[in-house]
């Protein structure tokens, strides 16, 4: 951490960068946004925008479960993040299993699960009128990232990049046509589950900083913008990650000066990028 602090002091000798929390947030943004840019490409490819949205919502229920467990076993000292993660992974697997049964279209299934989860979470959290305590999760707070958070984030960052290197090609084939992937010896279901669980973990970890309300936009918009102008997979990834990074950095700085929520500011800037690339697409054809 010391190295990071002095590096920032050296590279960015501005007034607003002298605070420790800004340096932490900067590192957080540098770690989170590229991951979102990367994963987003596949989310948009697979039309999973709604799924990522429901993951964010189910985090609420995860918090609620954490509260119950915390009350029941105060000695264990369970942090909300772990109960959130557990619940997100659980609901992800549930959605995939029900989806396989092929009884209703995917977005219907996700809608059912997501709304039920949110309802359950709200019921538990609003008991005795104590919801205000948790409303911070709705908006998120990038400036509250602590060095321990950053360590966790760093590990996840490395893990995601590693996985993305190892499985991307197979994931892409599987998402294009399962039978075709199957004929080339790819175990389609395994990859589908792996990717969905990976998404669940990332969304859960970042939710306390980005906020439940907008987390899926941060996943979807950079990739969607990139898609407007990309002609192949490489461009798609490069633009998506760049847009996420640039939005993240400028969003952090602007939110400091405007005194606004960082996550929302970042998302707003990505929307600007979407408009821009969309304009480019229309002009270039």
């Amino acid at each position, binding site marked *: 951490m010391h190295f990071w602090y002095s590096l920032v002091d050296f590279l960015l000798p501005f007034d607003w960068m002298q605070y420790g929390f800004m340096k932490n947030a900067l590192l957080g943004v540098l770690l989170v946004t590229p991951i979102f840019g*990367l994963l987003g*490409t596949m989310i948009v*490819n697979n*039309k999973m925008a709604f799924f990522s949205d429901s993951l964010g919502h189910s985090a609420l229920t995860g918090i609620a479960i954490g509260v119950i467990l915390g009350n029941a076993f105060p000695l264990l000292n369970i942090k909300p993040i772990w109960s959130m993660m557990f619940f997100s992974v659980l609901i992800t697997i549930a959605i995939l299993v029900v989806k396989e049964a*092929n009884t209703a279209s995917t977005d219907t299934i996700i809608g059912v699960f997501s709304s039920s989860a949110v309802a359950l979470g709200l019921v538990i959290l609003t008991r005795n009128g104590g919801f205000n305590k948790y409303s911070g999760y709705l908006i998120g707070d990038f400036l509250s990232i602590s060095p321990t958070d950053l360590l966790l984030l760093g590990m996840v960052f490395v893990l995601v990049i590693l996985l*993305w*290197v*190892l499985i*991307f*090609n*197979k994931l*892409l*084939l599987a998402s*294009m*046509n*399962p*039978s*075709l992937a*199957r*004929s*080339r*010896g790819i175990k*389609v279901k395994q990859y589908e589950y792996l990717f969905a669980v990976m998404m669940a973990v990332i969304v859960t970890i970042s939710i306390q900083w980005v906020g439940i309300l907008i987390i899926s936009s941060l996943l979807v918009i950079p990739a969607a913008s*990139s*898609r407007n102008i*990309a*002609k*192949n*997979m*490489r*461009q*798609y*990834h490069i633009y998506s990650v760049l847009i996420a990074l640039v939005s993240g950095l400028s969003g952090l700085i602007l939110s400091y000066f405007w005194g606004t929520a960082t996550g929302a500011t970042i998302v707003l800037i990505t929307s600007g990028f979407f408009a821009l690339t969309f304009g480019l697409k229309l002009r270039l054809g």
Partner: protein
Amino acid sequence: MKHPICVNSDCKICESSLCCTKINNFGVKRSGIEILKNVNLHIHCGDLTAVIGPNGAGKSTLLKAILGEISHTGELQFLDANNGTTKPSMGYVPQKLDLDSTSPTSVLDLFAAAHTNLPIWFTYPKKIRDRVRESLALTHGEHLINKRLGELSGGELQRVLLALALDPVPHLLLLDEPVSGIDQKGLELFYQTVSTLRKNYDLSIILVSHDLNLVAEYANRVAFVNNKTIECCGTPQEVFTNEKVIQTFGLDWSNRFQRVEKDRVANALLV
């Protein structure tokens, strides 16, 4: 091609590591509904088996079950020349590819993703471009290499998918109406390519097609799928004169087929 007729077991002259594909008492259920039952089919390497039948008969389902994408009951065995089981490599051309036309996946991306483990969002292997050009040349599609899949025409996409299925040359080639959108010139090219491959590599091919004339000309075995099972299987001659097949496709067609067949035999005799 080393064997013109299908030998049952213990054949020692196979060139392909997949010698026989045996389907016994095969059945498929989806959402609780029986789609195929009691299917028996035996495919020898070097065979071009055409699967014909009315819409919704279960032809595509049969191919997907052989691929292992959907589960089935009964036996599906891949045997090598020594009658041991083997795991063949398969090439597959789907009947349709539900493509998102906005997807930024180029033809090169598709091939690179299939051929390498190097993540294509990061870099391409050096030689891949040449290799992809070469395999696209098989179906005369070299010029499509940098196009996005979404902007290909139906026939162009089929050419690309076929080229992909043939690279590397698989042991078992499953083609689900691969040429339904390909023009006349491409059609001839396709059948020539497949015939050459069949001869050179002792390849087993299963081809679903509604084009009975071409089936009659190129397939050496025909399986007729109807009423949830293979109702009749044999040489084109046998199948196209079968009662049930005639009922399904109409007497006219069968008569024409027999006339053409007679002409052919007569011509052959003249020569």
